[in-house]
Protein backbone atom coordinates (compact mmCIF):
# COMPACT_ATOMS: atom_id res chain seq x y z
CA UNK A 1 0.00 0.00 0.00
CA UNK A 2 1.33 3.38 -1.00
CA UNK A 3 1.88 5.70 1.97
CA UNK A 4 2.61 9.40 1.86
CA UNK A 5 3.79 11.14 5.00
CA UNK A 6 4.15 14.87 5.49
CA UNK A 7 5.78 16.71 8.27
CA UNK A 8 5.18 18.84 10.07
CA UNK A 9 1.40 18.58 10.09
CA UNK A 10 1.10 21.96 11.71
CA UNK A 11 3.42 24.93 11.41
CA UNK A 12 3.12 28.40 12.83
CA UNK A 13 5.77 30.82 11.70
CA UNK A 14 6.45 34.52 11.49
CA UNK A 15 6.54 36.57 8.36
CA UNK A 16 9.97 36.86 6.84
CA UNK A 17 11.17 33.47 8.04
CA UNK A 18 12.14 30.46 5.93
CA UNK A 19 10.87 26.95 6.41
CA UNK A 20 10.63 23.57 4.70
CA UNK A 21 7.80 21.04 4.52
CA UNK A 22 8.81 17.43 3.94
CA UNK A 23 6.98 14.73 2.04
CA UNK A 24 8.11 11.10 2.17
CA UNK A 25 6.48 8.33 0.18
CA UNK A 26 6.79 4.59 0.31
CA UNK A 27 7.01 3.41 -3.27
CA UNK A 28 9.02 4.25 -6.35
CA UNK A 29 7.47 7.12 -8.22
CA UNK A 30 8.77 9.78 -10.53
CA UNK A 31 5.70 11.96 -10.29
CA UNK A 32 4.80 14.09 -7.31
CA UNK A 33 2.34 16.94 -6.91
CA UNK A 34 1.95 19.80 -4.47
CA UNK A 35 -1.42 21.38 -3.86
CA UNK A 36 -2.64 24.27 -1.75
CA UNK A 37 -5.99 24.43 0.00
CA UNK A 38 -7.45 27.55 1.61
CA UNK A 39 -10.12 27.11 4.32
CA UNK A 40 -13.45 26.09 2.80
CA UNK A 41 -11.96 26.00 -0.67
CA UNK A 42 -10.87 23.33 -3.08
CA UNK A 43 -7.36 22.25 -4.04
CA UNK A 44 -5.16 24.46 -6.17
CA UNK A 45 -2.32 22.89 -8.12
CA UNK A 46 1.08 24.38 -7.25
CA UNK A 47 3.72 22.13 -8.73
CA UNK A 48 4.16 18.86 -10.54
CA UNK A 49 7.58 17.26 -10.29
CA UNK A 50 8.28 14.68 -12.95
CA UNK A 51 11.81 13.43 -12.51
CA UNK A 52 14.60 12.90 -10.04
CA UNK A 53 16.25 16.18 -9.20
CA UNK A 54 13.36 18.25 -10.49
CA UNK A 55 13.12 21.70 -8.95
CA UNK A 56 10.35 24.19 -9.54
CA UNK A 57 9.86 27.67 -8.14
CA UNK A 58 6.95 30.03 -8.04
CA UNK A 59 7.35 33.23 -6.07
CA UNK A 60 8.36 32.38 -2.51
CA UNK A 61 7.71 28.64 -2.94
CA UNK A 62 10.20 26.13 -4.25
CA UNK A 63 9.59 22.40 -4.60
CA UNK A 64 12.12 19.65 -5.23
CA UNK A 65 12.06 15.90 -5.76
CA UNK A 66 14.58 13.21 -4.86
CA UNK A 67 13.17 9.94 -6.19
CA UNK A 68 16.00 7.87 -4.77
CA UNK A 69 15.28 9.08 -1.25
CA UNK A 70 11.53 9.10 -2.00
CA UNK A 71 11.43 12.63 -0.66
CA UNK A 72 10.02 15.91 -1.83
CA UNK A 73 10.40 19.26 -0.11
CA UNK A 74 8.43 22.48 -0.31
CA UNK A 75 10.56 25.40 0.78
CA UNK A 76 9.08 28.73 1.79
CA UNK A 77 11.31 31.76 1.57
CA UNK A 78 10.61 34.97 3.48
CA UNK A 79 7.08 33.90 4.31
CA UNK A 80 4.18 36.32 3.97
CA UNK A 81 0.71 36.08 5.51
CA UNK A 82 -0.92 35.28 2.15
CA UNK A 83 0.85 31.93 2.11
CA UNK A 84 -1.18 30.75 5.09
CA UNK A 85 -3.03 27.62 3.91
CA UNK A 86 -2.88 23.84 4.05
CA UNK A 87 -0.34 22.28 1.71
CA UNK A 88 -0.67 18.73 0.43
CA UNK A 89 1.76 16.54 -1.40
CA UNK A 90 0.41 13.68 -3.51
CA UNK A 91 1.90 10.75 -5.33
CA UNK A 92 0.56 9.10 -8.44
CA UNK A 93 -0.87 5.70 -7.51
CA UNK A 94 -0.13 4.27 -10.92
CA UNK A 95 3.44 3.42 -9.97
CA UNK A 96 2.35 1.41 -6.95
CA UNK A 97 1.00 -1.20 -9.30
CA UNK A 98 -2.62 -0.65 -8.54
CA UNK A 99 -3.37 0.45 -12.06
CA UNK A 100 -5.66 3.16 -10.77
CA UNK A 101 -4.73 6.58 -11.99
CA UNK A 102 -5.51 8.44 -8.80
CA UNK A 103 -3.42 10.30 -6.26
CA UNK A 104 -2.52 9.30 -2.74
CA UNK A 105 -2.29 12.39 -0.58
CA UNK A 106 -0.38 13.17 2.56
CA UNK A 107 -2.36 14.42 5.55
CA UNK A 108 -1.47 18.01 4.75
CA UNK A 109 0.57 20.68 6.50
CA UNK A 110 -1.52 23.41 8.08
CA UNK A 111 0.61 26.54 7.77
CA UNK A 112 -0.11 29.73 9.68
CA UNK A 113 2.06 32.76 9.01
CA UNK A 114 1.76 35.47 11.58
CA UNK A 115 2.64 39.12 11.01
Amino acid at each position, binding site marked *: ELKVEQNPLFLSMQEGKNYTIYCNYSTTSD*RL*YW*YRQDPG*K*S*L*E*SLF*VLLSNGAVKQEGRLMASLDTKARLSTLHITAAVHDLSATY*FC*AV*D*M*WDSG*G*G*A*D*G*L*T*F*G*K*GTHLIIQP
Partner: protein
Amino acid sequence: GAGVSQSPSNKVTEKGKDVELRCDPISGHTALYWYRQSLGQGLEFLIYFQGNSAPDKSGLPSDRFSAERTGGSVSTLTIQRTQQEDSAVYLCASSSRGRATQYFGPGTRLTVL
Protein backbone atom coordinates in the same frame (compact mmCIF):
# COMPACT_ATOMS: atom_id res chain seq x y z
CA GLY B 1 -11.79 28.79 -19.48
CA ALA B 2 -14.29 27.24 -17.10
CA GLY B 3 -12.97 24.99 -14.42
CA VAL B 4 -14.41 21.84 -12.90
CA SER B 5 -17.89 22.41 -11.54
CA GLN B 6 -19.80 20.34 -9.02
CA SER B 7 -23.37 20.35 -7.82
CA PRO B 8 -24.87 20.69 -5.37
CA SER B 9 -22.36 22.64 -3.31
CA ASN B 10 -24.04 21.47 -0.12
CA LYS B 11 -26.32 18.53 0.53
CA VAL B 12 -27.99 17.62 3.79
CA THR B 13 -29.78 14.31 3.86
CA GLU B 14 -31.23 11.87 6.31
CA LYS B 15 -29.63 8.56 7.07
CA GLY B 16 -30.88 5.89 4.69
CA LYS B 17 -31.64 8.22 1.78
CA ASP B 18 -29.90 8.06 -1.58
CA VAL B 19 -27.92 11.02 -2.93
CA GLU B 20 -26.47 11.92 -6.31
CA LEU B 21 -23.49 14.19 -6.73
CA ARG B 22 -22.63 15.68 -10.09
CA CYS B 23 -19.34 16.70 -11.67
CA ASP B 24 -18.75 18.63 -14.88
CA PRO B 25 -15.10 18.35 -15.88
CA ILE B 26 -13.06 20.86 -17.80
CA SER B 27 -14.08 20.69 -21.44
CA GLY B 28 -11.88 18.27 -23.38
CA HIS B 29 -10.50 16.51 -20.32
CA THR B 30 -10.67 12.77 -20.82
CA ALA B 31 -9.78 11.70 -17.29
CA LEU B 32 -12.08 12.32 -14.34
CA TYR B 33 -11.53 11.51 -10.65
CA TRP B 34 -13.57 11.40 -7.48
CA TYR B 35 -12.07 11.92 -4.03
CA ARG B 36 -13.47 12.25 -0.55
CA GLN B 37 -12.11 14.59 2.12
CA SER B 38 -12.98 14.16 5.78
CA LEU B 39 -11.35 15.17 9.03
CA GLY B 40 -10.70 11.62 10.09
CA GLN B 41 -9.50 10.12 6.83
CA GLY B 42 -7.97 13.04 4.99
CA LEU B 43 -8.14 12.95 1.20
CA GLU B 44 -9.10 9.54 -0.20
CA PHE B 45 -9.15 8.50 -3.83
CA LEU B 46 -12.44 6.85 -4.80
CA ILE B 47 -12.54 6.16 -8.53
CA TYR B 48 -11.31 7.42 -11.84
CA PHE B 49 -12.67 7.38 -15.38
CA GLN B 50 -10.75 7.32 -18.60
CA GLY B 51 -13.42 8.28 -21.08
CA ASN B 52 -16.57 6.53 -19.94
CA SER B 53 -14.91 3.53 -18.37
CA ALA B 54 -13.68 3.05 -14.84
CA PRO B 55 -10.87 0.47 -14.88
CA ASP B 56 -10.63 0.16 -11.11
CA LYS B 57 -13.47 0.57 -8.64
CA SER B 58 -11.63 -0.80 -5.63
CA GLY B 59 -11.31 2.64 -4.05
CA LEU B 60 -15.04 2.93 -3.50
CA PRO B 61 -15.67 2.52 0.25
CA SER B 62 -18.59 0.10 -0.06
CA ASP B 63 -21.08 -1.32 -2.52
CA ARG B 64 -23.42 1.53 -1.59
CA PHE B 65 -21.20 3.77 -3.71
CA SER B 66 -21.36 3.80 -7.49
CA ALA B 67 -20.29 6.17 -10.21
CA GLU B 68 -20.91 6.59 -13.86
CA ARG B 69 -19.78 8.86 -16.64
CA THR B 70 -21.70 9.40 -19.82
CA GLY B 71 -20.60 10.88 -23.11
CA GLY B 72 -17.06 11.24 -21.82
CA SER B 73 -18.11 14.30 -19.87
CA VAL B 74 -20.43 14.58 -16.88
CA SER B 75 -20.05 12.14 -14.02
CA THR B 76 -22.43 11.21 -11.23
CA LEU B 77 -21.44 9.70 -7.91
CA THR B 78 -24.34 7.95 -6.22
CA ILE B 79 -24.46 6.93 -2.58
CA GLN B 80 -27.30 4.63 -1.62
CA ARG B 81 -28.70 4.25 1.87
CA THR B 82 -26.44 6.98 3.23
CA GLN B 83 -24.81 6.55 6.61
CA GLN B 84 -23.44 9.19 8.96
CA GLU B 85 -19.89 8.12 8.18
CA ASP B 86 -20.51 9.16 4.57
CA SER B 87 -20.49 12.80 5.70
CA ALA B 88 -17.54 14.45 3.97
CA VAL B 89 -16.62 16.79 1.15
CA TYR B 90 -16.68 14.98 -2.17
CA LEU B 91 -14.21 16.42 -4.65
CA CYS B 92 -14.09 15.86 -8.35
CA ALA B 93 -11.03 16.48 -10.51
CA SER B 94 -10.23 16.22 -14.19
CA SER B 95 -7.10 16.07 -16.27
CA SER B 96 -6.36 16.32 -19.96
CA ARG B 97 -5.24 12.71 -20.00
CA GLY B 98 -4.21 10.03 -17.59
CA ARG B 99 -1.29 10.92 -15.31
CA ALA B 100 -1.48 14.64 -16.01
CA THR B 101 -2.07 17.39 -13.47
CA GLN B 102 -5.51 17.08 -11.91
CA TYR B 103 -7.66 20.18 -11.50
CA PHE B 104 -10.16 20.08 -8.70
CA GLY B 105 -13.69 21.33 -8.45
CA PRO B 106 -15.10 23.22 -5.44
CA GLY B 107 -16.56 20.06 -3.92
CA THR B 108 -19.91 18.97 -2.54
CA ARG B 109 -20.25 19.03 1.22
CA LEU B 110 -22.46 16.10 2.23
CA THR B 111 -23.98 15.96 5.68
CA VAL B 112 -25.90 12.87 6.71
CA LEU B 113 -28.10 13.42 9.74
